[in-house]
């Protein structure tokens, strides 16, 4: 019997298909629906084709938000990935009290709700009573994230790195723990240096988890909303207005559902494109590596 004649297998994926349909496809289609209509009120709608897409794509403020967002994600990845790996390498490799303490301490920022993180950092960086803000100002430097765009960025980056580097570190640590001791013994016998061990054993063995860490960190940082919303509200000026903050302004602030729908779809496609690119680059690096 030929394969295509027996289609009973499709029945097995039907439940999953239904769940995904209701959780992802139906909401997504609603957004598509909004993005191609002009909605005046219940029952009053006009088909407008690609007008909202054209409007959004030529929106100067959206371009600025996109570059801001790319810069932010890029910096976050450049800091968090090496730092996370470095922390994982320095963590105690043997199971025991020390390792447990380090693991729990590292995991703490991950357990705090995101808007609370913003609140913590507002207080922490306040120039009058915040530990960090007051300390810096006491040194004679002015530091105020509500007044200076640069200071707002520094605060956001610090907060993001503090919040999410532990995730990279934990994933990298799990990757390191899965390397059998024989690899280190063989490297010792081969006379490998610490750098060689990192380059040829630890890094290749961590690659799987680091790919996951990279994708997660990219997506999360690219979609960041709660923390800048609480900390800076997109300001001062527009200096921390990232894509998601701008999107919410259009959708909820101005109730422009059409442009907001078009924006959401473009946003989604950008994230998808980057994840695809990262994944492809890492995959081909594995196959093509001939060092």
């Amino acid at each position, binding site marked *: 019997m030929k394969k295509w004649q027996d289609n009973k297998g499709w029945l097995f994926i039907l439940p999953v298909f239904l769940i995904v349909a209701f959780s992802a496809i139906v909401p997504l289609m609603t957004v598509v629906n909004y993005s191609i209509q002009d909605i005046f009120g219940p029952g009053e709608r006009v088909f407008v084709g690609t007008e909202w897409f054209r409007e959004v794509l030529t929106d100067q403020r959206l371009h600025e938000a996109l570059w801001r967002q790319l810069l932010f994600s890029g910096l976050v990845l450049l800091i968090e990935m090496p730092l996370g790996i470095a922390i994982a390498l320095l963590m105690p490799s043997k199971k025991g009290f020390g390792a447990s303490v380090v693991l729990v301490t590292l995991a703490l920022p991950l357990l705090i709700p995101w808007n609370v993180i913003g609140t913590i950092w507002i207080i922490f960086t306040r120039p009058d009573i915040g530990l960090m803000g007051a300390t810096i100002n006491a040194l004679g430097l002015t530091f105020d994230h509500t007044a200076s765009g640069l200071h707002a960025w520094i605060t956001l980056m610090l907060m993001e790195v503090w919040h999410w580097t532990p995730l990279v570190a934990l994933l990298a640590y799990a990757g390191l723990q899965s390397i059998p001791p024989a*690899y280190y*013994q*063989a490297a*010792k016998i081969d006379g490998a240096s610490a750098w*060689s061990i990192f380059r040829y*054993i630890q890094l*290749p063995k961590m690659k799987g988890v680091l790919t996951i860490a990279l994708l997660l960190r990219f997506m999360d940082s690219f979609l960041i909303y709660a923390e800048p919303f609480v900390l800076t509200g997109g300001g001062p000026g527009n200096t921390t207005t990232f894509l998601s903050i701008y999107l919410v302004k259009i959708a909820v602030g101005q109730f422009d559902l059409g442009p907001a729908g078009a924006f959401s779809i473009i946003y989604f496609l950008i994230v998808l494109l980057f994840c695809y690119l990262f994944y492809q680059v890492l995959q081909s690096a594995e196959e093509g*590596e001939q060092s």
Partner: protein
Amino acid sequence: MAQIFLDEIAHSYLPETQKEDEYALKRIHNIWEDGGAYALLGPSGCGKTTLLNIISGLLVPSSGRVRFDDTDVTDLPPEKRNIAQVFQFPVLYDTMTVFNNLAFPLRNRGFDKDYIDRRVREVAQILELEPFLNKKAAGLGADAKQKISLGRGLVREDVAAILFDEPLTVIDPQLKWQLRCKLKEIHEKLKLTLIYVTHDQVEALTFADKIVVMYEGWIVQIGTPQELFEYPNHKFVGYFIGSPGMNFIPCSMEDGKVKIGNSLIPVDETTARLANAAEGKLELGIRPLYLNISDTPVDGAFEARVKGVEDQGSHRIVTVDFEGHPLKARIAENDTVPQGKAYLTFPIEWIRLFADEHLIKENKEN
């Protein structure tokens, strides 16, 4: 190349060890000849890997010294010992090509490029890895991977010994045979000292010139396969080597004969004299291969009851009950299998007597 001298080695994994039981290695004192192929044979947990790691330098023994020729290397790390080790699972640098894997130990030691190139090609030729040199190591089969692990040891001309820690565990049975032959060939060609840890007696018997049998942290016997088979020094060797292992029956001496139940089995004079002098629990041991079994009463035979027969293809194993003790005998496939009653004869030259688990033999006190 070097002779390896283990001087009163003992090792415990616990920090403060008082009792002998707590030692993973009790007292190891012997010399491994330069260019010998040794197999370290023993059950899991007998200390083989511990001993191997002490020789390679991955472990520092709790007491005793390790010497390569005249150099004391006890406190030297593995990379300074000129030793190579092949592990149970292939250890490779996945992202490198086979060539770079083989070149890695030489590059780390700062050899020049031309030498490395020549040397790697030589070794690849010996191991038949030439077609793969420019391929990534990660994509190869388990046997090729183990060859690469071995190759990383062979490329270093100064290597004193190559240690193998059950290297064929992950290899398919047909390839195992090929790799073992390859190893033997390399040993003959390069005259390297090889130490091979295994719990598989077939592997040990085919690979090694000398087999070192370990049991509960002791080396119980070192010998050629024939010596181990014919003169097992310790009950454990008799039981562990051979398939099935040696038969053991508790016995006593009476009138220069071995007494089991009501049967008196004749032994030669020397054995009888030594057995009379020996102290401790006395046991008779005989290999299933040498225990004669017949379906008709023959001269000097003892009666036994047949309990079962196992057909193993080329031969049969008959289990009999003799004076309340189970005994196994190996008979040829086309021999008649006795039904019900069987008659056993114990050839004088194959009877071994053990006192307190140790073989009774001349000019050595037990």
